[in-house]
């Protein structure tokens, strides 16, 4: 066996469409490197970002990385719709079937694992410690490691664009198609190892924040006084802790099949592909609730703040979250009613699925009644909420229909299904996180985003979404299945695919406005400064500290007596406690998380290309890093009371 495994020059030659992607990727990287060198930012990058263990900075990195991944996923989506708008009858479009299949596989994988999960962990990192009145997360080092594992998983997956190729199997890589017999190339291995590296990061993060929420709340903040975002995140984290090990195990078994010739999921030799389908959805269905729960949490904060009223039905909301958490583990089979499990089994899972509509509906009514008798201000986060309710309700009805097994037989794997889950994930998850980003943006930058461009972005997203996905509902009923790179003109699908393509273009315009919004807001930041730390007249603790907060979040840990802690403090005009600064212990910066994740990257790369020496070295290096880190003593430093006082006074005098 050669030192390079199965890697050779052919791995980077794939025709002009991919060449354009490769050149863009390499070009952007060179530009960034050049810029950093030219502006002498390397030291800054090292000190402030690469070695940081501050959850606020890690959160920003999550969001930036997720944003880049989102642009890639959006490009994939645009290419898919462009192909479908032209590839009719004699015309086979500009993408080969194999390339088209790689693109939709990449689109799904990237959007779920790297856009949605990235935005979610970004917001959790930014907001949770502040909301519970904590100075840090439970395990800062582990937190940085999680981020870098996530980022390295994403890089590994994107490397497939330059070297080799990606899976052409759909985003969940069902066997036997994803087995060696039908997919002998490196594509599925890239999928497995990219997700494996990122997935371990997610699991570690799940544990970390679970401990943070349970153990590090400010004094007085009992669970039932916790902000609803934290409750939602807690629900999501418990799902992560139970679901992600299933993903890790499933991916490992598929990797064993592909690498060591085992037969967990092959068609032959007693393997059972149906087992894989069950396992992957036993992770996959909780995964969608992992994503949506924090988005629900965002809306709970946004609606209350912008209606200037407490959240309606706090207890109902908490029960609803835990109802969803429990039920989300009892519905996975609805993804394959068509496998023929039998009427009893199908009916059970169908009914469990419908049952989820109950707590979800309760949440929607509670949000609506939060607006009732409020003073509702329609800032952009509130617009995202309105769009969310409008879309999510329709998507929910589509979901309830498909929960009826016989109805699902007619809708499964059709574009109706695609339209349904995009309505839930774009309308729910994406709108939720975009609302959250706009809402908390001033907290982490010290200035607000431009409102006008934000509104333009919202309208493009909302109407673009309708244009892009209403046709898909109809196409599904017309018998159009998902994942078609080509179809016959006699089917009468062409016009609707063109409308859907226009819709995607409008959504792209929305994203364009968002990029513009970011640039304009940074340039005009002086006009939109958040000088008070409380730009929206907020209700929860994070608005009680400066924007952006100092590294230690709170010089004095607040004492919590009410649900909307900060609102109550403002209303009762609680006199600020006598500021008696004390010394604060902070974790030291360290490059070790990035090093560990880089070795995980090497391990994955070695497994993909059969360079086993590299994988073994990577694994040994990771173990050594953990040992080295474990045996060192000095992980923390102390900020003296005088230093804290100095920082606090500087913060106060900034805008005077």
């Amino acid at each position, binding site marked *: 066996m050669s030192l390079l495994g199965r890697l050779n020059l052919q791995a980077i030659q794939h025709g002009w469409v991919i060449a354009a992607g490769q050149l863009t990727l390499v070009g952007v990287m060179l530009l960034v490197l050049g810029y950093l060198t030219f502006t002498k930012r390397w030291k800054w990058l090292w000190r402030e970002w690469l070695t940081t263990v501050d959850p606020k900075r890690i959160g920003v990195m999550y969001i930036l990385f997720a944003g880049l991944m989102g642009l890639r996923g959006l490009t994939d989506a645009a290419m898919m719709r462009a192909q479908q708008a032209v590839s009719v009858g004699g015309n086979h479009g500009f993408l080969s079937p194999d390339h088209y299949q790689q693109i939709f596989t990449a689109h799904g994988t990237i959007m779920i694992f790297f856009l949605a999960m990235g935005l979610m962990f970004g917001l959790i990192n930014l907001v949770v410690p502040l909301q519970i009145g904590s100075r840090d997360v439970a395990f800062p080092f582990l937190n940085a490691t999680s981020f870098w594992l996530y980022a390295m998983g994403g890089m590994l997956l994107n490397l497939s664009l330059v070297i080799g190729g990606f899976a052409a199997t759909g985003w969940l890589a069902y066997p*036997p198609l994803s087995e060696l017999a039908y997919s002998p190339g490196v594509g599925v291995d890239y999928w497995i190892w990219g997700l494996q590296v990122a997935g371990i990061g997610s699991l570690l993060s799940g544990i970390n924040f679970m401990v943070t929420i349970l153990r590090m709340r400010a004094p007085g903040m009992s669970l039932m006084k916790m902000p609803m975002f934290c409750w939602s995140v807690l629900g999501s984290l418990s799902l992560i802790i139970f679901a992600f090990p299933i993903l890790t195990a499933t991916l490992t078994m598929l990797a064993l099949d592909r690498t060591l010739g085992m037969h967990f999921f092959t068609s032959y030799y007693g393997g059972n592909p149906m087992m894989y389908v069950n396992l992957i959805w036993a992770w996959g269905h909780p995964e969608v609730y992992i994503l949506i729960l924090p988005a629900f949490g965002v809306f709970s904060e946004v609606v209350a703040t912008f209606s200037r009223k407490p959240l309606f039905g706090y207890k109902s909301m908490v029960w609803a979250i835990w109802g969803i958490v429990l039920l989300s583990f009892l519905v996975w089979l609805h993804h394959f009613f068509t496998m023929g499990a039998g*009427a009893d089994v199908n009916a059970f899972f169908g*009914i469990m699925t419908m049952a989820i*509509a109950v707590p979800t*509906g309760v949440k929607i009514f509670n949000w609506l009644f939060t607006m009732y008798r409020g003073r509702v201000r*329609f800032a952009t986060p509130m617009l995202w909420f*309105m769009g969310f309710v409008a879309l999510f309700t329709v998507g929910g*009805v589509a979901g309830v229909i498909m929960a009826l097994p016989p*109805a699902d037989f007619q809708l499964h794997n059709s574009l109706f299904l695609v339209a349904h889950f995009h309505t839930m994930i774009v309308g729910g998850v994406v709108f939720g996180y975009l609302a959250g980003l706009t809402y908390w943006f001033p907290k982490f930058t010290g200035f607000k985003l431009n409102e006008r461009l934000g509104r333009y972005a919202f309208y493009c997203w909302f109407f673009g979404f309708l244009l892009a996905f209403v046709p898909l509902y109809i196409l599904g009923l017309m018998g159009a*299945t998902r994942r078609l790179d080509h179809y016959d003109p006699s089917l009468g699908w062409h016009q609707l695919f063109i409308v859907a393509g226009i819709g995607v273009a409008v959504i792209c315009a929305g994203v364009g406005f968002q990029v513009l919004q970011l640039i304009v807001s940074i340039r005009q930041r002086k006009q939109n400064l958040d000088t008070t730390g409380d730009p929206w007249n907020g209700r929860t603790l994070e608005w009680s500290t400066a924007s952006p907060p100092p590294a230690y979040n709170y010089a004095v840990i607040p004492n919590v007596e009410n649900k909307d802690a900060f609102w109550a403090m403002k209303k009762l005009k609680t006199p600020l406690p006598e500021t008696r600064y004390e010394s604060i212990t902070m974790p030291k910066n360290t490059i070790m998380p990035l090093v560990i994740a880089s070795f995980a990257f090497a391990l994955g790369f070695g497994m993909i290309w059969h360079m086993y020496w590299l994988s073994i070295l990577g694994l040994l290096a990771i173990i050594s890093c953990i040992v080295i880190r474990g045996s060192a003593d000095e992980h923390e430093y102390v900020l003296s009371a005088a230093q804290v006082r100095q920082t606090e006074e500087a913060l106060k005098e900034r805008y005077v």
Partner: protein
Amino acid sequence: MSTKTKTVVGVVIAVFILFIAATYLRSANIPVLEPAGPIGQKEKRLIVEAVLLSLVVVIPVYVMLVGFAWRYREGNKKAKYSPELDGSRPLESIWWGVPIILITILAVIAWRSSHELDPFRSLSSTKPPLDIQVVALDWKWLFIYPQQDVASVNYFRMPVDRPINFQITSDAPMNSFWIPQLGGQIYAMSGMATQLHLEATKTGDYLGESANISGEGFADMHFTAAATSQPDFDAWVRGLKKSPNILGQTAYDRLARPGHDNLVAYYASAQAGLFDQIVNKYEAPVYFAPAEAGL
């Protein structure tokens, strides 16, 4: 533009779009909503019932969303403002209770319909059912008629008003066998036979397709399901009998090779027990199983 002009322009645009959409939908061919058989008919009715029941929740949500947003907008100082209102047990009981009742109704529907429309359940009819064995291949569909001893590729015929018993397997990655206008789909998987029972009540050529990604030629893996009168069906079978092609092991092996020309082919006869052989070969003991590479 004033708010009023904006609203008017918005309404005009919305009406215009709805008009275009309605005109389009009237002329469009929507198989799932225009079923040509009893199974498709019942599945369509189920979809419609579920939508209607959901409206009980959907309409109030939309009314309140727009109504509350308008009434309690910041600029409207006439609206009541209750900054301490944070819940109401009776109200919350309503929106726990009503959805629970609705879902209970839907649950009963789900249980009954799952059993009634179980794809494995044979249809009751005065006429004898016709057996058709279906094999998903890379990337084509093979139909074997065990009673008539004929076979065809990418095209099959069935008499109307007669229940069809499909036995479905795959000698390729997983596929899904779907004829939208006749009724729901079921997976085609190697090493096992799934069943589907359908019936056509109207003559016509119906689109059949694979609904599950199975590799490069998946998109064009279509077939025609032709429902004809019994005499036309018999004539077709007699025609097939005159075909020079016989589906023996060699012919099958050639057919099973990956290819996506999507051609129609007919066979005067198929090797006895071919379908069971295809299913069973995946169950063969290890030392008989074909090499993985040479599938």
